[in-house]
């Protein structure tokens, strides 16, 4: 049993299309299956809408649409991750949730050129696990990227 190293950080691994991604576990509040969504008037198409989560209204974004990744067909594993970004909640829809990773900081590498749908500026690092390449992405940057709504 490996002892927990203070330099290890926990990440949540999930899939978008064929690629694997991970985000810091601390920013994840919960994972749910998407309830009924009310669309947001005149909003960009990656905004799915708002949902009622136990009495709180939360906006939900489809990460696959935002990154133009084709969602898996007939996907029963589709899930929504509720994140805490800047003290406000946001939901992101992903194709599947895989596992929680315990990553040592040393094992995170910076690959200069990665052929991914995600632009390089959003990738904080890369983690190699067996034969899987997992991209550690910065969700906040991705969401801030396009001006969300213009009045």
């Amino acid at each position, binding site marked *: 049993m490996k002892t927990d190293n203070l330099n290890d950080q926990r990440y949540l691994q999930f899939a978008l299309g064929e690629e694997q991604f991970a985000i810091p576990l601390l920013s994840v509040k919960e994972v749910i299956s998407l309830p*009924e969504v*009310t*669309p*947001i*008037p*005149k*909003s960009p198409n990656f*905004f799915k809408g*708002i*949902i*009622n989560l136990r*009495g*709180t*209204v*939360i*906006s939900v974004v489809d990460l696959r649409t935002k990154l133009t990744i084709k969602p898996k067909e007939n996907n029963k594993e589709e899930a929504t991750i509720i994140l805490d970004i800047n003290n*406000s*909640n*946001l939901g992101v829809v992903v194709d599947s949730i895989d596992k929680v990773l315990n990553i040592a900081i040393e094992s995170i590498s910076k690959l200069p050129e990665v052929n991914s749908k995600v632009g390089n500026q959003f990738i904080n690092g890369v983690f190699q696990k067996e034969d899987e390449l997992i991209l550690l992405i910065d969700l906040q940057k991705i*969401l801030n990227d396009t001006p*969300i*709504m213009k*009045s």
Partner: protein
Amino acid sequence: MDDFEVELKKDFLEESLSMIDNCETSFLALDKNPGDSGLIDQIFRLAHSLKGTSRAVGFAQIAELTHIAENLLLKIKNKEIELNPHIVSTLLEFNDRVKLMVETLRADLGAEFQNHDLIGKIEDHINGKAVSSASTHPNTIAENAPIESFEEANFANFEQSPPEPIMEAEQVNSIETSPVDQTEMSEAALESMRELGFSFDTNEKKEVPKMAPVLELKKEVASPAPKTEKAPSSPAQPADESIRVALSKIEKLNNLVGEFVILQTVLEQRRFIHIQDELSVKSITQLSKISKEIQDISMSLRMIPLKQTFQKLSRTIRDTALALGKDVELTIDGENTEIDKTVLEKLADPLVHIVRNAVDHGLEIGADRTQKGKSPKGNIKIAAYHEGSNMVIKVTDDGKGIDPNVLKKKAKEKGLNVNVATMTDAQAINLIFHAGFSTKEQVTEVSGRGVGMDVVKTNIEIIGGKVDVSSTVGSGSEFKIVLPLTLAIIDAFVVEAKPERFVLPVTHVRESLILRSQDVKYLTGVGNVLNLRDEVLPLYSLSQMFGSQKAKFDPGQTVIIYHNYGDPFAVAVDSIIQQQQVVIKKIGQEIKQKEGLMGACILGDGRPTFILDLIEVIGNKIKQSKNRTIQPGLAA
């Protein structure tokens, strides 16, 4: 320190804050009414009690400082010393220092303080010694402490311009001051005034001469006739039955009440149709009545009157005016208007800043005012009132006003990303809120620690409010802050604009009616209009504006008429499903920016639905296009 001791100390710190606030109110009242012995007695009692309790729980330094202040107060009480604005200033300083100590101790029970300077000052007053106002007390005092170095600059001014009486001074004792080099300070202040586009005479750019005999001041100041101010007499001790409650408990309660309202609405809707037995129907009806009362009371728990904040503003004005040698008359209207505590906390700083600006940059000095035919006393009016579902706070001054042309020029010079050419004057005046305008490098003592108007605007927007300024050059300016009354459980229409539903607050609605085809016309250049009896109103389609459909005006639809404060308009929806109360839920910043989305709510079936503010989207546009400008100025 054992737990019990810690408890004692913490309790004292909690309790003492309200005592200190009471003290400040009394000091300010005393300033206006120095002869009021009732006030002096009350202050003496407060100080005495503060001294005793602080000593008992082991805060020796607070006790020591209060003890000296108590001695001064005793002398004043026994009429051995006569009150003057400088003594009051020192007493206010004492008040600030105690407050600072209490707040520091709350964070760190072991904190120690250095009060020699203040103690020295108070002792000087006691011994009747002339007080040197060039003290070097550290700038850690709360923002609204009198700015010593500014006092210097303006005593110098007295040489060249007829001295203005300091706020409500009945007497002025001879004051010894020592020359201090503060040309830099004046420059910075002048510079920030220029930045804000105020024109001013070069008169004000003075060299600071060697200290002229300020004793001249004494003979030139005519003893002002005792003003019959509406000074408050000693505030009666309220027989107050109140209890301290943790804010978190109230928040929990409010959340639960919100859920309760939703569930009760569901029951209400099922009554008569799905639920038919008499007892159930009766109970649900009773429940609705009680629920309304619960809502009202629970909402009111967090509401506190603006009075407290207005008092702070009154203090700010006094201190700023004193520091600048200006004479200011403050009128307050609506101090009993209530507002949510958390909103109030965030509102306090922006208000202080706006008010300071009004005194510092807005109002001219007495001489300039009389020259323009204005009263030598500058007027500032602070008013608060409820308007629809909003709280409005206005700060109006009758000073120089803001010159849109100067601002436009400034904007160009600074290379700001705004289109100066197409800007109206009203828009140009609001440039002061532009980030590019705030001169963050300048830390002028009076107008805040480099806090610009853009920060003020941001802070107001964070609490969901809006701020606007209007002005007429030469006459004055008016800052208007509009805040949503939070804890919103509002009456609203649930409407259908197929396939979506939306919620429209009832507040601004005048009437609703069923649309007939003959009522709708299309006028080229104007758009769709509605013929309503003898009115012709602009007509909008909700489906088109917020839904996913094209505009449609079909017979059988419902049209909702908004009064829009005199510029009515009409909105067509498919139908009004029902009228009910809804709990406003906040929506994230990312969608809040979109015009018209004032929040969301959860309807009886659990679906989240948007609440639309059509006044914001349509109403204001109509008003703007009709070129209504708001005239500032103080209503008589």
